[in-house]
């Protein structure tokens, strides 16, 4: 009797040995077919040398037939030519928006995580709220406010200044719109890290004679370093790939970003090759951030295990 039971159990264990891999198969297969293959597709289009009747590049799926003329051309144009200003705008706007995010987002996250007491739940809910409001809705709100007859110009007019053409391609409007769009995604992860700092560390620093400022720079800031970097990477990645914010609040060639160039050329057909090459360049830039971020998260999860 006992023997048969053990035997059944053994058989069942054999049957469940492949359980975990087989559970992972559908998801992995899906991501291979619809994430890995499409990414390879970008390369196939960017490195293609043949055009079809419509003048669109035919993807070169065989890496031996890759041709780098278009890619080289796009790199040339990015360094000294038509795409240069797009790259400049992307880097400058993102850097400025990021600086504002740190200056505003850190204090907010710090206050909610460590200092707010009675109304902490309310604050947390209000800070999470923008996560759940459609991005386009939030941008639409600004387009209304910044319109010619909008509230922004009412305020400007109230102080006796002439009306400003906010939506006519102003770089600072683009930067502020980027901050508005992505600051919530900066604050929340940072909040989570700041919340986990042990209060006794800060008290120890105070007991050992450091003042508030010194405690912040020597204890709190280093302890929240990973959170700060994570928040910055999380915010920077979508900002680099953003084109709709720019289109909505400016739609002017004077503020064009790389995302705008990519969107336009990918969907046009003729310049798909150029678009795909730009995507590859953007991905290469972002790969640095991504790799850093992945290493950080993997390390953090390993420590926690």
């Amino acid at each position, binding site marked *: 009797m006992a023997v048969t039971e053990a035997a059944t159990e053994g058989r069942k264990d054999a049957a*469940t040995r492949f359980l975990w891999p087989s559970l992972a198969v559908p998801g992995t297969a899906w991501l291979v077919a619809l994430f890995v293959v499409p990414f390879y597709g970008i390369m196939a289009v960017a490195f293609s040398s043949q055009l079809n009747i419509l003048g669109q590049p035919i993807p070169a799926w065989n890496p031996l037939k890759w041709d780098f003329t278009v890619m080289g051309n796009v790199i040339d144009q990015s360094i000294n030519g038509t795409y240069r200003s797009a790259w400049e705008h992307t880097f400058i706007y993102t850097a400025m928006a990021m600086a504002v995010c740190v200056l505003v987002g850190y204090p907010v996250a710090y206050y909610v995580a460590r200092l707010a007491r009675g109304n902490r739940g309310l604050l947390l809910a209000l800070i999470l709220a923008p996560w759940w409001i459609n991005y386009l809705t939030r941008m639409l709100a600004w387009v*209304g406010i910044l319109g010619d007859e909008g*509230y922004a110009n009412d305020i400007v007019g109230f102080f006796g200044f002439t009306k400003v053409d906010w939506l006519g391609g102003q770089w600072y409007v683009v930067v502020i719109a980027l901050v508005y769009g992505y600051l919530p995604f900066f604050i929340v992860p940072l909040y989570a890290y700041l919340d*986990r700092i042990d209060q006794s560390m800060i008290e120890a620093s105070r007991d050992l004679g450091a003042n508030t400022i010194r405690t912040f720079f020597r204890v709190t800031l280093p302890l929240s370093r990973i959170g700060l970097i994570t928040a910055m990477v999380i915010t920077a990645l979508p900002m680099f790939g953003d084109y*709709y914010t720019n289109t909505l609040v400016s739609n002017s060639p004077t503020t064009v970003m790389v995302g705008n160039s990519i969107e336009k050329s990918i969907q046009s057909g003729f310049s798909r090759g150029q678009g795909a090459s730009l995507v590859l360049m*953007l991905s290469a830039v972002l790969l640095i951030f991504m790799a850093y971020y992945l290493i950080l998260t993997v390390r953090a999860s390993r420590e926690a295990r």
Partner: protein
Amino acid sequence: MTTIGVDAPGAADSWEDKDRYVPPPEATRPPKKGFVPPWRNPWRRPYVLATVTWGYILWSLVPVLIAVQFSFNDSRSRSSWNGFTFEWYCCGTKPGSIAEGSSVFGSGADDALLLALQNSLTLGVITTLIAVPIGTALALGLTRWRSRTSNVANAVSLFPLVTPELVLGSALYLVISTLYTQIGLGRNALILGHVTFSISFILVIVRGRLVSIGSEFETAAQDLGATRMQAIRTVLLPMLIPAIFASAMITFAASLDDFVVSNFLFGDASQITVPVLLYSAVKAAPSPNLNALATILLMGTMGALLLTYLVLRLRRRGEGGSALDDLAGIEM
């Protein structure tokens, strides 16, 4: 909506209020000796930070409230207020009505708006139904299956989280218009795209919960005579339900919210979703019916969020901690 993957196993424990700063009782504070400048007084109230925080919150939410306000504007302008009307929502039937032929519901509605709303909701439901089982299975598989292959699969599954939507969208667009041509742009392409970006964050949410549960409960169940499958079904899955439920709600919201991937894949006007419609209409001829549509979408999302919150709170009853912290943790 960008959802973020920071593995925070066991985070729930450290977010309880035990570490929170509690000001020392009156008696232990140092006696006041004359004037103490605020920067030397560690017990002062953080007025500056409180002001910054409330200022930020106002700045982040007031524009949205203004947008809601203008969905009731009795004028075609989206920025100049001209009194209250409900016609952008319903029944711009009367000729000469401000919203003639362009309200969201009722006769005299602009059919494109309602179509977009239907498309968005259908897409959200289908995406959730497909992505949640796949993502949950992937989380179970990748957490418990330790091998070299699983490490590779792990890395692959995290990449969509950190890939900008622009890259994912254009990659899917190119591959669907050249390699997977039988899929075609439109509803099917939208479903495939939305499921693809959803799988990764379902994975992260469910895996976070799996790691914090640990394998002790399953082992105990097996020691008590359950088979491995029984242990998973009767012990592990019930414990995972809050995480699965939360990831379903987030998948639905993310699908409703998505613009970039949809904008690449929607094909023609019959499959347009609300965010894509908002985007193209703002560039063309915006009128307050867009605000009305956006407000309806907002109400839908807030309803889903409230539901999630209430369900989580119900489950948390007696366990301590707050459901709000759970929500914050989920988005990690």
